[in-house]
């Protein structure tokens, strides 16, 4: 094995473990063991990765405060280094980490709010596409529509929460003074989409998130509607379709 590989292995290991000894062969200005100097690299790597993840979860920062968020992210980045240098894709698994993070258990909705932040971030960077207008939908005979499949906007995402996650997300993201949300008010389905320049976040009728996921999995309109009605007896196909069309989440019909 070439020396450069070993040098970098030792360096990387010591950067990730602040308790470990410095790798051999490093010199400070006067030839001393450069502990503080090596600390600059430890700090640069650690804090820049925490910054990168934290920047994608602004609503969680508002909810739990900067200090708590950064402490959580610090634990997260220790075991989850970026797989690529494209940091806009880094932190996708953070909501799952939050769900299992012991000190955050008193906020059981936190992981779902983080999922909305991540879906927002994904929508922001997603590919462009032109949404389907209602007039284009009207050209398809009603009796044919049931057997058709929908093309979804690349930015469209949805999630279903047993908590009022969207209300919590919305007031923490947008309001100057956070409004109280009644946690007993029940679950919410949320739609995230960026039909043009701005990312939008909408409330979907109950069962709407599952319906969107079924459409994304290539189900026909009637199959997706039947599955959604089985899972959510109150599922309302017309209102859900209207919400998807109005948000620009549908780009075509096949």
């Amino acid at each position, binding site marked *: 094995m*070439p*020396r*450069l*590989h070993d*040098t*970098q*292995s030792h*360096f*990387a290991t010591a*950067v*990730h473990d602040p308790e470990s000894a410095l790798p*051999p*062969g*490093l*010199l*400070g*200005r*006067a030839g*001393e063991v*450069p*502990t*503080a*100097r*090596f600390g*600059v*690299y430890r700090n*640069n*790597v650690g804090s*820049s*990765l925490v910054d*990168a993840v934290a920047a994608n979860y602004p609503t969680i920062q508002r909810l739990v405060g900067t200090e708590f968020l950064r402490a959580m992210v610090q634990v997260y980045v220790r075991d989850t*280094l*970026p*797989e*690529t*240098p*494209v*940091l*806009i894709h880094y932190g996708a698994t953070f909501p799952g980490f939050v769900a299992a993070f012991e000190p955050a258990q008193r906020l059981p909705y936190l992981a779902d709010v983080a999922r909305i932040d991540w879906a927002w971030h994904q*929508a*922001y*960077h*997603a*590919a*462009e*596409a*032109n949404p389907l207008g209602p007039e284009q939908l009207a050209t398809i005979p009603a009796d044919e529509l049931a057997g058709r499949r929908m093309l979804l906007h*690349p*930015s469209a995402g949805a999630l279903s929460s047993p908590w009022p996650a969207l209300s919590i997300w919305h007031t923490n993201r947008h309001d100057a003074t956070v409004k109280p949300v009644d946690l007993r008010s029940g679950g919410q389905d949320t739609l995230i989409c*960026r039909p043009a*320049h701005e990312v939008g976040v909408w409330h979907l009728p109950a069962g709407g998130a599952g319906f969107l996921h079924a459409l994304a999995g290539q189900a026909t309109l009637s199959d997706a509607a039947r599955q959604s009605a089985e899972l959510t007896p109150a599922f309302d196909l017309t209102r859900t379709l209207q919400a998807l069309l109005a948000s620009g989440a549908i780009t075509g019909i096949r």
Partner: protein
Amino acid sequence: MPGHAGGCAAAVRNRPVAPIPASAGVGLKPAHYQHILEHRPAIGWFEVHPENYMGAGGPPHRYLEAIRELYPLSLHGVGLSIGGAGRLDRAHLERLATLVRRYQPALFSEHLAWSTHTRGFMNDLLPLPYNEETLAHVAGHVAEVQDALGRRMLVENPATYLRFEDSSIAETQFLEELATRTGCGLLLDVNNVYVSGTNHGFDPPGYLDRFPTRLVEEIHVAGHVRREDDLGQPLLIDSHDAPVADPVWALLEQALQVAGPLPVLVEWDSSIPAWDGLMREATRAQRILHARTTEHRRHAATA
């Protein structure tokens, strides 16, 4: 706000490469997108980190498309890890090639550093031992990048905080040899010269005297912060979060006097000021460019 980015591929295909002028440019930051498009400030050019534009679409591309229509652009990579002991990340190289095709930047540069190892990407520019093994390795990577992008790249001298026992080649000589072997150009970061010089106890103007200035196609200036190491020695950190320090401006003057007119970029990547704050730094760089390159021409004429 730029209205439409769909269908851009066709519009971009025949976009001419706008050369980077020998004037002051700044790093393009999202906080300044709106201001730039509304006011079209008199700045020579912009530079971006390509990694921030590797999403499929969205506002970053919409703004960059609009700004690229108005100004020359340079791509300054921070993630290729050309000093990494492993193989280059081909997927990342392909993403870079896609951006280069789309935006037709006049320059592409990267750092003499590594940032990726077996466990993943570390998001920092980590130092290298300068010896024959590293030189052969980095030269192979630079050649591979230039092949993949179909163009010459520039390699930047790094800011470093420690040295390696098994370094046997001076940094200036290492860069010169790298350029000789690969045909790459160099990006001279005079803040990095000052930071490394202070940290390692060498004389920054003397380093510039030894630097192969004829290979330089771009100069960077940036701010740093001052700390101390365990022995109470000065430890400068290349933080890009402050105005450019006076000794760094002096190095810029020295470099331009020798090299003649070159593009000069002001880097400011965190605690980013309002546009006017950044423009003040660019204006200072522009004044120095004007004064030094006039002098350079006078010397050349009388030589």
